């Protein structure tokens, strides 16, 4: 299943930030949804801004247009405001992308847990994202920070408890 690009992607002006406020807002919204769906399709959880600039999302080789560094920053800032992105460093060079909120991930995981009667069991984080049992589940291959966030979301709901042992973390579902 290949990624479906929105029509704007082949529209050259899309790659230049528009001066008109209204147009610009629509443009940013389109960029945000494009970036998020691209990450979702390729299961990306962390982005490097420099790398992102070269990736097909912001760089359409067919029409030879790419989004400038400043514009990317603006798009990312917009995503951050919406709660889908978090900077990893002060220089804003690396960021975490959350195309699905931690609560939703938590819900997915908990659904799987309760479907398989594994409530009240202990799991290692490794087991949840890399184990054979979760093969084929959406959260298989999730990055650990994301998993931890979603588990913490579950913890505030009282459905899970994260604890550590030696060097690794584990979680118990309730």
């Amino acid at each position, binding site marked *: 299943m290949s990624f479906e690009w929105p029509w704007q992607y082949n529209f050259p002006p899309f790659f230049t930030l528009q001066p008109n406020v209204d147009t610009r807002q629509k443009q940013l919204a389109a960029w945000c949804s494009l970036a998020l769906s691209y990450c979702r399709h390729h299961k990306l959880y962390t982005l490097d801004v420099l790398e992102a600039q070269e990736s097909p999302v912001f760089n359409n080789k067919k029409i030879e247009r790419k989004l400038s560094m400043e514009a990317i920053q603006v798009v990312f800032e917009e995503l951050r405001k919406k709660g889908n992105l978090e900077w990893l460093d002060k220089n804003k060079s690396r960021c975490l992308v959350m195309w699905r909120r931690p609560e939703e991930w938590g819900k997915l995981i908990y659904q799987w847990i309760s479907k398989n009667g594994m409530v009240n*069991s*202990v*799991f*290692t984080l*490794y*087991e949840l994202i890399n*184990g054979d049992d979760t093969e084929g589940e959406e959260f298989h291959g999730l990055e650990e920070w994301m998993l*931890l966030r979603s*588990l*913490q979301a579950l*913890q505030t709901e009282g459905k899970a*408890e*994260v*604890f*550590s*042992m*030696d060097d*690794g973390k*584990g979680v*118990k579902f*309730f």
Partner: protein
Amino acid sequence: MGNLLGRNTQPSRVTEQDKAVLQLKQQRDKLKQYQKKITFQLEKERCLTKLLLKDGRKEKALLLLKKRRYQDQLLDKTENQISNLERMIQDIEFMQIEMTVIEGLKVGNDCLKSMHKIMSIEDVERILDETQESIEYQRQIDEMLAGALTQEDEDAVLAELHAITQGEDIAFPEVPTEPIPEVPEAARAQPERRGAKNKPDREMLAA
């Protein structure tokens, strides 16, 4: 961090057993990772051996095969260890389940005991007696309200019913006796004996 947060609001629901299970699972994960590594190496070396054989470097290939063999054994051993760990994990989990079962039985037992305290045998007897009395009383009221029928009436009704059902059987053999003019002595005595019973029959026939 999450753990600390959890402890602030309510006591942690993670027990010592859970921690033990986690530790075991961590070991298992490590073994699984090790297994993956070895499998990967095996695959790589297999390709390498083929290449060496193609180049005609047989001794080197043989050496690699020996190494492979050893790694194969390692893989088997790891597999065993993993299943050992998993068995242990399952044992612990099952013990936890057993504990909850016992806990449940205990609660049930206590509940039964406390209920028995409320319900003494004397009370039950008294209540049963009272109920019986009430039933009797109710029956008397019913009789009075239903009016007419006393015990004697009931008996009579029953007798009649009995006679009717009997009468149906006897009715057949009686028919051929009538046209015969001379009735033997013994036969005449019989209807006399059964007179009481046959009377209702005749009434029926007449009707």
